[in-house]
């Protein structure tokens, strides 16, 4: 480890690039196969089969969809504001993926004498002997998820179509109101953990053989955060921005080809992120039995928990019809925000006396 760049060993950079690549490719694959899994699971819940023809039991369906979308005609409406129209899918997609930078997906592993924490934005300081990560990880995630709104609003506005505009407006109103209650329900967790760093939050949940989850201490906050996140990423039953029955396809009505695919990817990447975040904050992250003995079990537990939550998302989608817009706003402002505030107060009172 003789070579040092900017005071950091070479191994740091290699590990960083490797982590970024592995996590990114993994999220991309998960996104691709989440579409397949969703169609399969919802199919079976409706006593159908789902995709069966492309490959064994339709396993190549995501690839076929991708290729098809890639070769579709690129249409830019003549009245659209071209630049914003082209940039909007990127603005929607990028925050969905970069959120993953601060999520810890495993403990610290040792390769060739160099300790690597399995979290992209983190490194192991050999001198101090501890892991440093983004100490405002959760704030970063909340900020990025708010950025995602811009993509959708821009898409709706730039398309210069009434349906798209309606979709974009709905999306912004919905995401802003649910962000509040999602953030407030997280506050209760920070009152327990005393930190915003995600790796610390995971560490605090490692007791009781890896089952000292915040889910058990803050069940209400966990439930509210998950539901609000669903609303924030516009998944059913809160998919009003793209309500087919009213708005054709909402903000992505005018989009075609790969740009449409990017919105789709952003939606599923957001779902992965939200599930990963819920796992990290409420389900103990990568903690589980035997993780200290076998460090590679950490990512396995993490992936299992994330996939379980994604299954729950799809399960909810298969079950519930879309909310009406006034019901949605009622739920956000008159139910979740007061309950989240009460939850904070109660947590504070209990925390003061214990």
């Amino acid at each position, binding site marked *: 480890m003789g070579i040092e760049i900017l005071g950091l060993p070479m191994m740091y950079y290699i590990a960083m690039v490797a982590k970024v690549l592995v996590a990114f490719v993994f999220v991309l694959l998960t996104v691709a196969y989440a579409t397949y899994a969703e169609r399969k699971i919802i199919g079976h819940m409706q006593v159908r089969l789902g995709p069966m023809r492309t490959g064994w039991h339709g396993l190549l369906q995501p690839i076929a969809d991708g290729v098809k979308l890639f070769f579709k005609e690129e249409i830019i409406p003549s009245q659209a504001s071209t630049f914003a129209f082209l940039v909007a899918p990127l603005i929607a997609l990028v925050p969905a993926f970069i959120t993953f930078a601060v999520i810890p997906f495993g403990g610290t592993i040792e390769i060739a004498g160099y300790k690597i924490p399995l979290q992209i934005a983190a490194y192991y300081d050999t001198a101090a002997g501890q892991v440093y990560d983004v100490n405002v990880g959760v704030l970063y995630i909340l900020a990025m998820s708010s950025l995602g709104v811009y993509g959708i609003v821009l898409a709706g506005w730039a398309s210069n179509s009434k349906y798209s505009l309606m979709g974009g407006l709905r999306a912004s109103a919905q995401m802003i109101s649910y962000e509040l209650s999602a953030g407030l329900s997280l506050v209760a967790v920070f009152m327990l953990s005393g930190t915003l760093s995600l790796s610390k939050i995971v560490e605090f949940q490692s007791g009781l053989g890896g089952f000292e989850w915040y889910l058990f201490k803050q069940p209400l906050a966990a439930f509210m955060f998950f539901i609000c996140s669903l609303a924030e990423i516009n998944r059913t039953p809160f998919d009003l921005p793209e309500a087919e029955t009213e708005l054709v396809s909402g903000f992505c009505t005018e989009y075609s080809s790969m740009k449409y695919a990017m919105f789709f990817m952003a939606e599923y990447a957001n779902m992965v992120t939200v599930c990963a975040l819920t796992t990290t904050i409420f389900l103990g992250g990568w903690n589980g039995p035997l993780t200290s003995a076998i460090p590679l079990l950490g990512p396995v537990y993490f992936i299992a928990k994330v996939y379980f939550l994604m299954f729950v998302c799809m399960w909810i989608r298969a*079950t519930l019809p879309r909310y009406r817009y006034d019901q949605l706003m009622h739920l956000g402002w008159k139910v979740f925000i007061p309950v989240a505030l009460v939850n904070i107060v109660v947590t504070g009172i209990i925390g003061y006396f214990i």
Partner: protein
Amino acid sequence: MNPITPIINGMKITLKHMFMKPVTLQYPTERPKVSERFRGLHGLKVAHSKAKCVACYLCPTVCPAKCITVEAGEDANHDKYASVYEIDMLRCIFCGYCVEACPVDALKMTGEFELANYTRQDFIYSKERLLEK
């Protein structure tokens, strides 16, 4: 009313359905089993290696869609037979009245239901195409 219970109940139902056997039929590879009395394409019954039809005109008379064309002819034994027997499948409504009306039981309906074709002319089934194999 408490809004959580219906959601939980719904989730239970969807989960239960996930473990049921799908009802989907993988159509071109898996064929549906049509019932015995399914009313599909018509078939002209054959007896002594020729059609049983005696060209009595009861089927075109009863046909509500007026899709059957019959022309009578006389064969070597001076018996009446259908020299032309055509059914226009674009008009046919598959009611089965022709089969009911037939006094000599010369007509039946088969389980054949894949009647798609490319030209209008292809939908007019001539006697040769209707004769049972």
